[in-house]
């Protein structure tokens, strides 16, 4: 069984809501990228979403755009990201890692080559923001290598399409809680609850909810009806500017622990 499936099976068995933090690989400090991943796990992460920096992150808000720009300015590329996952795997064989980003870096790297290297490094899935189901034929080498394609669903997704997404979902289905870019601060919990309940009933994979989750309160609100909560921009913002390993770990802990506790206290 794939690490993602195994993790969600365990979560379900223990009645816990998954916590999926997102960080941009190489931000705030490329030298501490692996230490940051370990800190995420130590503070309660169930799955790590690792952003592959891209020069033109069309679907991201200013926080993740800037994190991407900072990482690229320090020379971070796909090769580094795969290297960090491989290093992380040497001390953590269980926590699933999903690479999140845009298609071009993988297209240029070569799909078959990426698939081979990602599996060897210990990557479990990919979430490619600009590769909807309709265009995902190019990802065949990734699927054949065993990488899960994490699909997105949105409030604007039409019913017929939603049925297709639920049917094709693997790993987990990422429900974007509103129409907008990452990091925006709008959330109508009741609305999301109804939609997610419907999707969960039909999807062939657990449902994670994200976009706009900022703190323990908003995470807890979602935890009531989702299998997992994704939290990105607020964490990236909190980490920005940290340069010391200890400081990075402290910030992660200060941010994630209250959220983990809120999720577990339900």
């Amino acid at each position, binding site marked *: 069984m794939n690490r993602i499936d195994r993790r969600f099976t365990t979560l379900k068995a223990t009645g816990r809501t998954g916590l999926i933090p997102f960080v941009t690989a190489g931000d705030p400090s490329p030298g501490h990228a692996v230490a940051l991943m370990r800190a995420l796990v130590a503070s309660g992460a169930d799955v790590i979403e690792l952003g592959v*920096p*891209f*020069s*033109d*992150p*069309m*679907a991201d*808000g*200013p926080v993740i*755009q*800037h994190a991407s*720009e900072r990482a*690229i300015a320090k020379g971070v*590329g*796909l*090769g580094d990201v795969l290297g960090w996952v491989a290093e992380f795997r040497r001390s953590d064989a269980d926590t699933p890692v999903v690479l999140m980003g*845009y*298609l*071009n*870096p*993988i*297209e*240029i*790297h070569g799909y078959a080559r990426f698939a081979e290297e990602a599996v060897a490094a210990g990557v479990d899935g990919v979430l490619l*923001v*600009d*590769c*909807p189901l*309709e*265009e995902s034929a190019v990802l065949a080498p990734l699927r054949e290598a065993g990488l899960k394609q994490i*699909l*997105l*669903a*949105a*409030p*604007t*997704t*039409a019913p017929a*399409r939603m049925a297709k997404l639920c049917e094709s979902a693997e790993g987990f289905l990422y429900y*974007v809680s509103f*129409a*907008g*870019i990452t990091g*925006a601060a709008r959330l109508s919990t009741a609305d999301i609850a109804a939609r997610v309940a419907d999707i969960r009933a039909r999807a062939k994979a657990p449902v994670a909810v994200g976009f706009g989750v900022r703190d323990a309160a908003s995470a807890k609100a979602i935890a009531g009806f989702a299998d997992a909560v994704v939290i990105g921009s607020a964490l990236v913002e909190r980490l920005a500017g940290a340069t010391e390993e200890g400081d990075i770990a402290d910030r992660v802990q200060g941010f994630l622990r209250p959220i983990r506790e809120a999720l577990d206290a339900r």
Partner: protein
Amino acid sequence: MATPKIDDFLHWPDAHGRFGAYGGSYVAETLMAPLAELTEAYLRLREDPEFVAELDHDLKHYVGRPSPIYHAERLSQHVGGAQILLKREDLNHTGAHKINNTVGQALVAKRMGKRRIIAETGAGQHGVASATVAARLGLECVVYMGAVDIERQKINVYRMKLLGAEVVPVTSGSKTLKDALNEAMRDWVTNVADTFYIIGTVAGPHPYPLMVRDFNTIVGREAREQMLEGYGRLPDAITACVGGGSNAIGIFHAFLNDRAVRLVGAEAAGEGIATGHHAASLAAGRPGVLHGNRTYVLCDDDGQITETHSVSAGLDYPGVGPEHAFLKDAGRAEYVGVTDEEALEAFHLLARTEGILAALESSHAVAQAIKLAREYPKDKLVLCNLSGRGDKDVHTIAAREGISL
């Protein structure tokens, strides 16, 4: 992903918006529904006689079509080769071909009941054309423009403001057209319910490459008729500048199945392709995915889109419309680089021999027409798409020549 041998170039893209290996809809899930809604509306409207009649009426009475084909005799004499003919898109209302598309998309927006228009712009021509049609239809208009471009196109920025549009400076990335496009896309994702995004070129996700092309094919359809009527034959070659490629596909499209007509796109070679300071995606780039479609892009080995350079803001773009990528691979059109220097030289030569100030973008096409004319004998005809007028560039040219106005 080789492009198969093509017999008919007029019926692309396919139902998925693909031109062979290029095009498609590489966008975030939140945009899939609005794009489907737009595709459905547009495919219906393009067959709707009432819509077509309204568009034709606007093109004639508001834009001022048809634009003439002008025989640049003194320029041709000076060059000493083939005859150079100019398709005068610079004479359109607002001074460029861009209005053909914005008039069309604004009518689509109106039919779809949208009250807010957003647009991205590089040189400012598309921004002005969008602000123009928004003012005319009483729609709110927000134009995203790179901070660098705002600096070098001040006149157009002020024109947009005079027309009632809000110009939003984009300070992310390279602060040019590509970043303006990212920002406009983010606005659209956030405000899809009431907002219509008028993309200014034949790039972006399906149906934009199709729709923007359709609205610009008027250029080639007119030119084809005008050539047959005025010269009794088709031109031997056609040149057009290519940034995103809307004016080029506009004039090329009607001639795609006329295999004897050579089609040459002039990309911005900037300071020379070898220097790396250019914007020649087709001549020097590779297939990749940017701004919602697969096409040729300029990027490094990590897949990061690289910063481009051109003296002309309108060509300063690291991608290109997917149909051009398709035409390149199929061998139906050629794409060559024209440097800043060559474009400026052509600008001056055209001004002095014909009394026409061409846009810096269009000056690339003029430079390429001059090169081709030199290769051909005097009885050959080279048709150049003079896609815009140069008033907006007067400050840029003066500054380059050390003159302060």
